[in-house]
């Protein structure tokens, strides 16, 4: 297998039932191309971590197939696991180990021969080299997160799963993480990350998936998604205060601000007509003048919230 044209990750009809009957994943079908950054969004308990855990071999699937780089995760587990790196959500580390030793341990565990030079390269790229001889228990939360990334990269994976990589991480470190992700993408690594932070998906993802109640309810190119689902708003700052909307404007999706000094018109960018021209005409006819205008586009967060509410 192992062809550039084929998806690096292919999931077909994946289901996961936990003992007790709870269905964590429902007929998941997903394909991810080599070199992509895919962000999986979803509320708590949506199934994001279960999905990642199945692909990585931590959770057994109930039915369906998963292949990585053309290899089945059950039959060819050695091949698939050796090309996958996983950064878990929890800060689970061997507290009494040193940074260098724990990263070297991970490299060996994943079947790679010892290489102090490669471990050094990884540690330097994550600004951990100065702390290489420190016990992990002495590191801050952010540094421990870096150690987990270093462990996941120690065996030179081509697919990297980041399960909420910036949870509980401060803004500056979060930006560092995004930079690391971009560098990895530049090296050809496929990255699948789960996140609660919509801005994170907006910032670094090529495609965005939304999972809710164990189902993928959307998987779309980020820019297309925002263009397709994004609502725009035209905000008009009025010259004179309005006490109520005139009857003539009742057909428009207009909201009047509480102080009566602002009109907000919501329109769909994908519609045949935005209605802006006719609105302007009708405003003129109604004798409503404005001092300023600007437009805003709904964020991925709003899109996400709307999708989850609809699917629930």
């Amino acid at each position, binding site marked *: 297998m192992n062809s550039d044209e084929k998806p690096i990750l292919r999931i077909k009809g994946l289901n996961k039932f*936990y*003992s007790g009957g709870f269905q964590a994943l429902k007929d998941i079908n997903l394909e991810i191309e080599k070199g992509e950054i895919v962000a999986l969004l979803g509320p708590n308990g949506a199934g994001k971590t279960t999905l990642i855990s199945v692909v*990585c*071999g*931590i*959770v*057994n699937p109930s039915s369906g197939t998963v292949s990585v780089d053309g290899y089945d995760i059950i039959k060819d*587990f*050695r*091949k698939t*696991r*050796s090309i*996958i790196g*996983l950064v*878990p959500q*929890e800060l*689970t*580390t*061997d*507290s*009494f*180990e040193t940074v260098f*030793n724990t990263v*070297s*341990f*991970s*490299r*060996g*565990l*994943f*079947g*790679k*021969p*010892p290489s102090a030079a490669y471990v050094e390269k990884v540690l330097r790229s994550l600004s951990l080299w100065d702390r290489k001889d420190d016990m992990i228990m002495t590191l801050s939360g952010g540094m421990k997160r870096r150690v987990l990334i270093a*462990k996941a990269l120690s065996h030179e994976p081509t697919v990297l799963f980041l399960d909420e990589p910036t949870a509980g991480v401060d803004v500056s470190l979060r930006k560092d993480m995004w930079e690391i992700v971009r560098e990895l993408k530049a090296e050809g690594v496929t990255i699948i990350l789960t996140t609660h932070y919509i801005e994170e998906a907006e910032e670094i993802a090529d495609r965005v998936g939304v999972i809710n109640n164990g189902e993928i309810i959307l998987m779309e190119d980020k820019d297309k998604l925002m263009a397709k689902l994004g609502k725009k708003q035209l905000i008009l700052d009025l010259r004179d205060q309005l006490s109520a909307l005139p009857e003539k404007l009742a057909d428009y999706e207009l909201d009047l601000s509480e102080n009566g000094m602002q009109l907000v018109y919501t329109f769909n960018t994908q519609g045949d007509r935005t209605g802006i021209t006719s609105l302007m005409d009708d405003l003129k006819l109604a004798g409503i003048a404005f001092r300023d205008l600007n437009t805003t586009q709904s964020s991925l967060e709003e899109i996400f919230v709307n999708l989850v509410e609809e699917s629930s």
Partner: protein
Amino acid sequence: MNIYGIMAIYKFEMARTKRTLVQSIVAPVITTSLYFIVFGAAIGSRIDQVSGISYGAFIVPGLIMLNLLTHSISNASFGIYFPKFVGTVYEMLSAPVSTLEVVLGYVGAAASKAVILGIIILITASFFIDLQIAHPIMMMVFILLTAVSFSLFGFILGIWADNFEKLSVVPMLVVTPLVFLGGSFYSTDMLPEPWQTVSHFNPVLYLVSGLRWSFYEISEVSVMLSLTSILVFMFACLGVVYYLFKTGYKLRS
């Protein structure tokens, strides 16, 4: 085979021993020395020979077996339980390592530590008594088989346990009593009936008897029976470990 994976687990576990040197090596040596002082010198001096050898020498195989069993179990059970407890087990489950390789790493390290400890106790014993070993190769065979078998047993215990109490309850309430009642410090000939017959249902008796035979050529049961029983126990444990990994019992949901 993922040789680097096996070595990584093995070295990681052996490094843990280095960090806990006092608990792993020094404490058992001191405890053993105390046994020799109390049972060998103080009480032993008032006991005539047992089965033709001095009491101090008689208890050496029993002491080695006591340490082998308890430390094989505790090393292996803690080795696999701790990653489960702190959550780092995710790495092993997502790594390209098979059941056999994981077992070789963890059980190999636990058994190595137990064998090293057994040899240290043997050396310690030589300071207190005039040590004779009639069949050194068979002695090593018994020590190795016991260490591997009970490390496998400890590994199973570590997978089964979901709290620290479960981890310690079997060694404390099952293994230690069996060792003490398995002829470690006495010959079962010294027991009245029906306890002498009851003792033969104690599996540890066969281990101690076999090891004692390798030292002094005296045994309570036949050497072949001792060897067979330890091999049966080892393969039974291997079967259970294979089943646990195949089903993902308490490891993979």
